[in-house]
């Protein structure tokens, strides 16, 4: 089985290298000191198993898993047993190893992975014709002062919640509309727009750059909440 190691500490990666070298079923494909590098790798290459540290700066192991569309089997590595309950929420997490890891316990975890039947190839998703219609529809009509005003959807780059109103920003004009982010989100193509914070929905195609926990979109710097960051990262075409 090809495997990846993701841990920000070199000493922890070395422990795993040593344990893996003693297990004839495993072969290290690559190792990474941060989750972003691993996501880039997985955009181009599959793997069978990931040894994943939960505690990493900026991005937890759980955040990392959320970024993967079809996650491979994962064995979590941590110094803390308190995350075990959360780990059960993820189908891809096969086992949970507490540091310091012994060879015996490590081999047992790998054996669990080997006993899992191989995954079937993903079937092509059948598209809902209604959602397809929504995605090809380019216009959105908003009610302002009893007039229905047409907005070209791709020209929208940002929507901000402002109390009972939303501010829709486009290239040419801003519109203040009596509505909610939830309602407008339902009318926008999901592959183009993403809620990155409880007060902001952005057009992901209009992102200029991303730094730590904020996105620059046109001239606006928009915060990204921790819970929404994995989905944002998943949507990026990372090199």
């Amino acid at each position, binding site marked *: 089985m090809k495997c990846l190691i993701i841990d920000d500490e070199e000493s922890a990666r*070395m422990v795993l290298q040593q344990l893996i070298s003693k297990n004839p079923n495993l072969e290290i494909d690559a190792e990474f000191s941060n989750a972003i590098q691993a996501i880039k790798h997985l955009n181009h290459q599959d793997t069978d198993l990931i040894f994943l540290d939960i505690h990493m700066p900026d991005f937890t192991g759980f955040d990392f898993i959320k970024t993967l569309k079809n996650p491979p089997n994962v064995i979590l590595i941590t110094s*803390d047993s308190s995350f075990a309950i959360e780990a059960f929420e993820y189908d891809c997490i096969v086992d949970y190893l507490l540091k*310091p890891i012994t060879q015996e316990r490590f081999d047992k975890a790998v054996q669990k992975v080997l006993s899992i039947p191989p995954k079937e190839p993903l079937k092509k998703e059948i598209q809902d014709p209604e959602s397809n219609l929504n995605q090809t529809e380019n216009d959105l009509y908003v009610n302002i002062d009893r007039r229905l005003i047409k907005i070209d959807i791709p020209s929208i780059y940002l929507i901000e919640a402002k109390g009972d109103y939303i501010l829709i920003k486009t290239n040419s004009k801003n519109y203040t509309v009596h509505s909610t982010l939830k309602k407008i989100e339902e009318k926008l193509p999901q592959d183009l727009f993403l809620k990155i914070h409880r007060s902001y929905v952005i057009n992901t195609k209009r992102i200029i750059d991303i730094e730590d926990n904020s996105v620059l979109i046109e001239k606006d710097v928009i915060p990204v909440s921790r819970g929404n960051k994995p989905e944002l990262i998943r949507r990026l075409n990372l090199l």
Partner: protein
Amino acid sequence: MNEQPNLSYVHELSGGDHDFEKNFLRIVKRELPLDAERFRENIAAENFKEAAANVHKLKHKISILGLEDSHRLAQEYELQLREGVNKLENSFLEILDAMMNYLEKIQT
């Protein structure tokens, strides 16, 4: 601090591979003072949540050196720091000093 650092886990992990032991301990020796420094800085700045994350990382090295009681203390200290309580700082620093003194004596 009653217990003493030891290399039982490292020996078990290496399975007699001395090159591995040497390289591994060299890396632990390099990482430990840096981790300890980050912890001290966060404590000095009263960034207790960050300091808790530092303690969390240091727990791995504490366990590598076979310090089971110290690991339990670090576990408790990490939880305290997450709640903004800093009562075990001196005991924890004592553990770090003992680890660094022990590693300094080891040839890598």
